[in-house]
């Protein structure tokens, strides 16, 4: 019953996707001006053409690197600051206004500011970091606050060293929060990085390619690059989510192995 439901939902997903592609194709046919709306075929054709050029892979590689660097930095700092904020209320009060402002500021404001402040190559990393760090910080802080007080009381009675309490009580309690915040920040990291690349235009970047496509009215290239970003973001997210799932399942397997 369940298997057939999953199968049905997959078939449905596929049919609905085909339906939207058909709508796109129809709209392109009706408009019939590729500069305004290229067809599905033209977009895929443009993507294939790009795929034959080395520069495309250089652009993809560097954009990927920027996403990794931005998300990676925000993971490291988000976890560190989140733990400190969860453990020490003054640190939370100190950081909360900054994080709240970052969360509600439009990404484009940061990009424009960064254009004034720093070199074009580092802007996308900086912007990606700024967009992701509050997500991870908020989750980790919450995880620390939600740690079972009764376990902490037990540790305090048995005079367990603080470093051990962090390692053996806080970190395992917060692990789930870290994983879900990483998964949530990947998509946002991609969008922020590419947006920053479009405006900052580092020499080698997918966003720079998009900007050029716009300038030269190569809308099919813009669509093809967008499609590439979407596909890469999906793959990236899929790999990370699987990795995180394996990490938590691995612990489960160890549990059974040790029996």
């Amino acid at each position, binding site marked *: 019953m369940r298997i057939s439901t999953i199968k049905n939902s997959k078939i449905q997903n596929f049919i609905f996707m085909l339906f939207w592609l058909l709508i796109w194709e129809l709209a392109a046919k009706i408009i019939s001006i590729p500069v305004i709306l290229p067809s599905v075929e033209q977009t895929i054709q443009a993507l294939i053409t790009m795929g034959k050029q080395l520069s495309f892979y250089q652009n993809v590689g560097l954009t990927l690197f920027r996403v990794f660097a931005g998300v990676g930095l925000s993971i490291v700092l988000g976890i560190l600051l989140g733990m400190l904020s969860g453990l020490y209320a003054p640190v939370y009060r100190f950081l909360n206004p900054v994080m709240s402002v970052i969360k509600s500021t439009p990404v484009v404001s940061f990009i424009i500011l960064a254009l004034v402040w720093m070199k074009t190559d580092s802007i996308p990393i900086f912007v990606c970091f700024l967009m992701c760090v509050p997500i991870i910080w908020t989750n980790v802080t919450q995880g620390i606050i939600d740690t079972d007080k*009764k*376990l902490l009381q*037990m540790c305090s*009675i*048995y005079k367990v060293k603080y470093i051990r309490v962090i390692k*053996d009580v806080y970190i395992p309690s917060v692990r789930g929060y870290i994983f879900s915040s990483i998964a949530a920040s990947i998509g946002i990291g991609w969008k922020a990085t590419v947006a920053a690349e479009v405006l900052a235009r580092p020499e080698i970047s997918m966003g720079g390619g998009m900007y050029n496509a716009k300038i030269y009215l190569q809308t099919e290239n813009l669509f093809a690059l967008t499609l590439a970003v979407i596909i890469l973001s999906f793959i990236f997210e899929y790999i990370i989510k699987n990795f995180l799932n394996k990490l938590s399942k691995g612990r489960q397997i160890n*549990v059974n192995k*040790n029996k």
Partner: protein
Amino acid sequence: MSIKINNLKKSFNDNIIFNGLNIQFNDNEISCILGPSGVGKTTLFNILTKIDSYDSGTITGTEKKRIAYVFQEDRLLEWKNVYENIAFVIADEKDVKRRAEEAIHMVRLTGYEHYYPKELSGGMRQRVSLARAFVYDPHILILDEPFKGLDIALKEDIIEDFTTQWKKGKYTVLMSTHDIEEAIILAQRIFILSKKPAVLKTEIDVSKLNDVEIRNIIREHLEEA
């Protein structure tokens, strides 16, 4: 130095738990506290272990002492196995392996060292919590209804081992229970608390009376309470 509680006052908002409680627990004795549910036994233990604060009064005899506490709930780390949960409280001390294994043996959990709490029954989990307290080598051991949920045969075995181990090292034990028989078997002194705000109703020196007399005194006072 015995544990002396003088004129202890404690309330949670309008709920007055103690309004001048005086009680003294002798060193190296097993003291058992009996009293109706909600009389404040757990609050008293929480105050002694500094989990809860108190409004006024003095407590002496707990300073710089190693205190182990077996809570009503087991409070185990779900991500650590039986051995790791027990070794956790002495991880920075000497002889961890031997001591942990001894404690595991005492609560009859040998062979379950690598099991995780979620794989254990409620009674087994409580035994891990007991072993964690025993391994700590405490000066004061606080047991809040420690044998609740254990079947009779197992309870008798653990009590026997516990008494043997206690006789070897002799430390102060404070225990709360609802079970009169448990109190008579284990305790040198039984304290009966009456209900709200709690006061010490009577104190029984178990060595000076026979079992029948003790049972009668306890029943009489518990009924009044």
